[in-house]
């Protein structure tokens, strides 16, 4: 049993869309047999929370050069392109 990877979910307020996306990604990855630890913050706070996470998933624009893999996506709110983004997330977490 390897330690679950940590994903930081970000959005403008750090409580609204990031919570929905965190739940959706956690559930969808569980179905793929992957468990993750989740954290949340505002996009403006990402730089100070990014040190010990494996991936950042955001619904709003992120600062550049975070030094960590980062995905900005609305797929978990609109449903459009969800599977592609999940594939991308899975690939990053398995790397």
């Amino acid at each position, binding site marked *: 049993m390897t330690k679950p990877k940590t994903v930081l979910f970000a959005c*403008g*307020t*750090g*409580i*609204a*869309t990031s*919570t*929905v996306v965190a*739940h959706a990604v956690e559930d969808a990855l569980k179905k793929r047999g992957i468990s993750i630890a989740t954290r*949340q913050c505002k*996009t403006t706070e990402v730089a100070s929370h990014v040190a010990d996470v494996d991936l950042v998933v955001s*619904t*709003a*624009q992120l600062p550049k050069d975070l030094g960590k893999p980062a995905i*900005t*996506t*609305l797929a*978990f*709110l*609109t*449903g*459009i392109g969800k599977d592609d983004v999940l594939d991308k997330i899975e690939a990053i977490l398995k790397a």
Partner: protein
Amino acid sequence: MAQALMNYLDPGAIILGVRAETDREVISLLAERLHALGYVKPSFADAVLARESQLPTGLPLGGVNNVAVPHTDPEHVLKPGLAFATLIQPVAFANMEDPDEKLPVRLVFLMALNDKDKQVEMLQEIAGAIQSPATIEALIQSKSVEDVSRLLG
């Protein structure tokens, strides 16, 4: 499943067939209702407007009928609530993912959120509803609060 949405959506804060020119007009109109109904503090409207210009909330659905979900920080909220407007003609909201892109929006959900764990279902239900093109189309055509609650409840 969408019952949770009608728990938050106040019939007094549903405005159908709004004619507006700008995102600010729509947000102000809905924020006024939430304030009058006791969901938010007087500071809410300005806080949502400020946030929308910095961190927009337009959600692209891949067509001409898009959705916006304006909201702001919890300190401006008294209790969770939801206001909803349909727009007669599309109003431009910036894309959440790419603020430089403007989206034609026909449906606006203004959310008053103050607890991420309890009220996240509100946004979850909205996301669920907007993933159905048939629901989007029917919401745009809805003529009464009853129509809306049938679609969302």
